[in-house]
């Protein structure tokens, strides 16, 4: 049964999408970033417990371009970005598609705090290109994109918005539940929120905080309650990285999922990584914001169900 009119009705959102993509490229090119493309089909993804890769023959569709891009970073490509289609199984909802678009960028010689500032700049650049100065209207809320954004540590967020403190939540294995159901909807409603310093157990590839070793230098961006991006100072300690992958694989086994092979070339590259930071940003959700769309379905030409 054709629903041609639904596709026709998406025109405005798809035009916004094209504008976001063009302006994103212009932003990074103006900052001397190299646009790169890496294979979407890889022998095995990085071992992460809660991401399910989709098979493509004997290989796998990448859940993110992280693996290949960090090998490039280790080889001296100090400023790279990529807009890539990525694939994750068992993820479908108002904010999730099994095939989605990620923007990832990596920068040598910086840490997560400098990367946060670059995120602020990117959004201001995009809103300028969109002709809305720094006022974004999303779901009847006006969000002020001007710098500086709100910076809130995970611990503070639990104290301010959660029903229990961070320590209790970790103890009772309720970290994700409290974060997703209680805290997230309250983030980024007046200004975007940079939620930072995650407990070590929730940052498989991020560097340990110099100030507080129980936390990792990882942050997420929230705008209008939407989780948009995950960035961090890169871990450059291959031994520590191997330990974390082994832990992730153990968690996978516990969930009845097969463990992934150790990514030896990647681990070898890690030891040669410069001090750097990188981030993955959901392009579809960013388009949702600028198109004022309630569902990710509204900003892609076709959902899997519509094919």
């Amino acid at each position, binding site marked *: 049964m054709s629903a041609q009119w639904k596709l026709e009705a998406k*025109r405005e959102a798809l035009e916004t999408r094209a504008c976001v993509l063009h302006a994103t490229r212009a932003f990074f090119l103006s900052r001397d970033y190299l646009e790169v493309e890496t294979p979407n089909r890889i022998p095995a993804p990085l071992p992460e417990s*809660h991401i399910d890769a989709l098979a493509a023959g004997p290989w796998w569709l990448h859940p993110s371009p992280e693996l290949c891009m960090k090998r490039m970073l280790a080889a001296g490509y100090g400023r790279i970005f990529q807009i890539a289609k990525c694939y994750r199984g068992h*993820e479908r909802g108002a*904010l999730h598609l099994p095939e989605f678009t990620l923007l990832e960028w990596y920068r040598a010689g910086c840490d997560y705090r400098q990367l946060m500032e670059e995120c602020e700049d990117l959004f201001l650049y995009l809103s300028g290109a969109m002709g809305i100065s720094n006022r974004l209207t999303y779901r009847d809320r006006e969000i002020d994109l001007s710098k500086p954004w709100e910076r809130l540590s995970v611990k503070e967020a639990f104290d301010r918005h959660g029903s229990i403190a961070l320590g209790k939540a970790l103890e009772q294995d309720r970290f994700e539940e409290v974060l997703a159901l209680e805290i*997230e909807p309250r983030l980024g409603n007046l200004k975007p929120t940079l939620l930072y310093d995650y407990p070590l157990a929730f940052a498989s590839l991020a560097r340990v905080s110099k100030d507080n070793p129980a936390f990792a230098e990882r942050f997420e961006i929230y705008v209008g309650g939407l989780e948009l991006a995950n960035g961090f100072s890169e871990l450059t300690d291959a031994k520590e990285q191997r330990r974390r992958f082994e832990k992730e694989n153990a968690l996978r086994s516990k969930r009845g999922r097969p463990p992934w092979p150790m990514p030896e070339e990647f681990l070898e590259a890690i030891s040669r990584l410069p001090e750097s930071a990188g981030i993955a940003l959901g392009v579809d959700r960013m388009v949702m914001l600028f198109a004022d769309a309630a569902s990710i379905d509204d900003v892609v030409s076709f959902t899997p169900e519509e094919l």
Partner: protein
Amino acid sequence: MYSASDLRKNLRLMLDDDPYIVVDFQFVKPGKGQSLYRCKLRNMLTGSQIDRTFREVDTFKPADTEEKNMQFLYKEGDSFHFMDNENYEQIALTQEQVGDAKNFLIENMECKVLMFRDRPIDITLPNFVDVLVTDAPPWIKGDTVSGNYKPVIVETGYKVSVPPFVEQGEKIRIDTRTGEYLTRVKG
């Protein structure tokens, strides 16, 4: 057995020994964390709704129910009368038991009535139903801008969004699973 990733709208499952149907479903996944499945479920016996959040590791039994082919006869007040196609026995369901199906029930329509230990508790309609538009705002000619929908009311009293060219007295096809307009039906 169902696992949490099978959860979707209209899935019927057993919970605390009662049959439940998922009426609303939200997939939530905090960055790189484990998936959460936030559900609104309706107890198919009492009609009461509960909110539950499930995790990937949760599993469920399918609801212990049986489907019977019936014909919808007529509506009287708040009761909806059906006839069992096998033994011609008639049964009545309350508006609550009928649920959203009341929006699409047309006399003589064939449907499936769900029984839980000999109690009628739910209805499954044909996927597509053709209904008469009984009330529609007029089409302003020349307004062909895509994305411009308008609300109309159909013969069952149901309100639905349609493209601007649909007019009163026409028949339209609705997908009963989503409640959405699909196409105009000629003749």
